[in-house]
C-alpha cells in the first residue's frame, strides 16, 4: 500500500500536534491538511512482561522536529527503531513517509529506510571502514550515484560537520564527539527527508555536546530535514529547541535565538511509564505544573 505524498517543507502552521482531521483505513492521519512524515497510531510494544510503549500516538509534520524526553528505559530509543522498522509493534499502526512500516516486509523497508537517516547512540560507525567510506556508505554501496558525485557529496557533508581533515582516518582514531559528527554526516549524506537522533550527546563533555547540538540545528534549519531527537540531556534539548542556524553575509553559519515561528516547529514529548505524559512546545513545557515534569526539568 502506498500513499502518495508530496514533500512540503515547514508550513506556516506551528504548534503542538494538531488533532486528526481524517483517518482513512489505509493512509496516515492528516494534520492541518498535511500528510505527516511520521504517524504513530495507538502503538503498543512489550518485551515479554515489560510493556515499553502503551497506546502511543503522535505525528511529525514535514520540516518539524520532535524532542523525546524521558527517564532511561521509558521507550524513547524504541520509538526510533519502530520508525525504521527495526522493531515491530505488538499493536497499532505506524506510517513513515506515507508507508505502513509496521506490516511492511523487510525487503520493502529498505526503500523507506533509504529516505531516513539515523544517528545511533555511540555513532555505530563501521570499524573496518574509513571516515570517508562510512560517510559515503549509502552512496557507494547502495546508490547508483556516479563515483565522482558521491565523492563530492562526501566532501560536502564532511565539510558541513567540520571534519574534512579526518576523511582518511579510521573510526577508532576519532574522539567521541568526532564519531557522533561523522555519524551525522553519514546519516545526511544521501539527503534523507528525515533524521532520527538517538541520544547523540550522551557521554560527551558539554563543549563537545554543544558542537553536536549545533550540527543538529544546522541539519534542521539549513538542510530542511524533519527530525526526531531522543535525549535525556535537557540542556541539549533546550538548545536545539531555542536556537536556529542562519547564514551570515559571509555565508558563515551563525546560531541565534529562534524566532517565534521556529520555536513552534520544535515540540517536546515526555514519555512516562510507556505513555505520553506531555506534548507541546518549549514554552508549554516551561509553564507546566505537572509534578513529574517539574521534577524532571529541575
Amino acid at each position, binding site marked *: 500500500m502506498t500513499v502518495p505524498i508530496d514533500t512540503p517543507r515547514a508550513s506556516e502552521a506551528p504548534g503542538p500536534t494538531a488533532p486528526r482531521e481524517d483517518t482513512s483505513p489505509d493512509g496516515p492521519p492528516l494534520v492541518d491538511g498535511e500528510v505527516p512524515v511520521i504517524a504513530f497510531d495507538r502503538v503498543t510494544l512489550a518485551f515479554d512482561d515489560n510493556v515499553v510503549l502503551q497506546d502511543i500516538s503522535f505525528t511529525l509534520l514535514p520540516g518539524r522536529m520532535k524532542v523525546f524526553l524521558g527517564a532511561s528505559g521509558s521507550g524513547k530509543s524504541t520509538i526510533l*527503531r519502530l520508525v*525504521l522498522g*527495526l522493531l515491530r509493534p505488538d499493536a497499532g499502526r505506524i506510517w513513515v513517509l506515507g508507508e505502513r512500516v509496521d506490516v511492511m516486509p*523487510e*525487503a520493502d523497508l*529498505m*526503500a523507506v*529506510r*533509504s529516505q*531516513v*537517516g*539515523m544517528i*545511533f*547512540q*555511540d555513532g*555505530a*560507525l*563501521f*570499524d573496518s571502514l574509513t571516515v570517508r567510506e562510512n560517510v559515503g*556508505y*549509502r552512496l557507494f*554501496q*547502495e546508490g547508483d550515484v556516479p563515483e565522482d558525485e558521491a565523492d563530492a557529496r562526501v566532501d560536502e557533508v564532511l565539510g558541513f560537520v567540520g571534519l574534512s581533515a579526518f576523511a582518511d582516518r579510521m573510526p577508532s582514531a576519532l574522539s567521541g564527539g568526532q564519531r557522533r559528527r561523522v555519524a551525522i554526516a*553519514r546519516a545526511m549524506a544521501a539527503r534523507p527527508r528525515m533524521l532520527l537522533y538517538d541520544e547523540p550527546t550522551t557521554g560527551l563533555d558539554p563543549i563537545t555536546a554543544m558542537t553536536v547540538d549545533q550540527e543538529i540545528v544546522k541539519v534542521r534549519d539549513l538542510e530542511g530535514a524533519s527530525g526526531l531527537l531522543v535525549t535525556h540531556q535537557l540542556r541539549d534539548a533546550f538548545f536545539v529547541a531555542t536556537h536556529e542556524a542562519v547564514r551570515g553575509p559571509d555565508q558563515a553559519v551563525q546560531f541565534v535565538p529562534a524566532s517565534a515561528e521556529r520555536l513552534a516547529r520544535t515540540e517536546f514529548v515526555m514519555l512516562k511509564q510507556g505513555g505520553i505524559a506531555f506534548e507541546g512546545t518549549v514554552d508549554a513545557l516551561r509553564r507546566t505544573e505537572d509534578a513529574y515534569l517539574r521534577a524532571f526539568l529541575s
Partner: protein
Amino acid sequence: MKTFVEWIKNALLEVQEYLRLVSQVGRALVSRPFYGRDVVQQLDLIGVGSLTVVLLTGLFTGMVLALQSGMTLDQFGARSIVGRLVSATMVKELGPVLTALMVTGRVGSGIAAELGSMVVTDQIAALRALGTDPIRKLVLPRVIAGTVMVPVLTVVSNGVGMLGGMIISVTQLRVAASIYWSNVVDGLYMADIWMGLIKPVVLGFALVSIGCHVGLRTKGGTQGVGRATTNAVVTGSVAVLVLDFLITKLLISVLY
C-alpha cells in the same frame, strides 16, 4: 525439570533460527543485490588467511600418520604400503575433518566475534538503517567463501599431508619415494576422491553459517561477544564431527 524443558525449548529455538538464516541465505543467493567485492574479500580472508594453519596441520598429520601406521604395518611386514594408508586416510577422513576443525577455530570464531561486536555496537542495526540487508552483505559472502575455500584448503592439506607422509617414509621407514607414491595412487579410488571433495563442501558451509548464526544472535555486550566466540567454536566443531559421520554413512551407501 523446568530447567530441562527450558533448555529443550531454547535448543529448538536456536535450530529454528539457524534454519531461518539458511533459508534467507538461499534467497539472497538467487536475488539482487549481490555484493561481489565482499565475496572476493572473504575468499581471501578465509582461504588465503587459513593457508598457513592448514599447511602445518596437513603436513604434521601426514607425518604422524606415516609414523604410526609404519609401526603397525611393520608387524605384518607390510611397511611398503604405508603410502596407501596415508593417502586413503588423508583424502577420505583426516584431510576434510582436520581442515574443517582448524578453519572452525580460526574463521568460525573470528566471524562470531566480528558479527557479535557489530551487533552489540549497533553496527548491524546501522547497516539495516542504511538500507543494507546484513544477510546479503555479511552472511552470504562468508558462506560462499567458506563453501568454496574449505574444499580447496582440504585438497591442499591432503597434498601436503601426503608429502609429509613421504618425508617420514623415506627418512624414517626407509621406503623408497617411488614405492610410496605408487601406493598413494593405488590406494585411492574415484569414490574416495568424491568423498574427499563432497565432505568439505558441506562442512565449510556448516561451520561458516554456524559462526554467522551465533554472531548475529549475540546478546549482552562484550561479555556476550566472548560467549558467542566460544559457542561458535564448540558448536562448529561438534557439528563438523557429527556431519562428518552422517555424510560418511550416506556417501558409503551411495558411492561404494
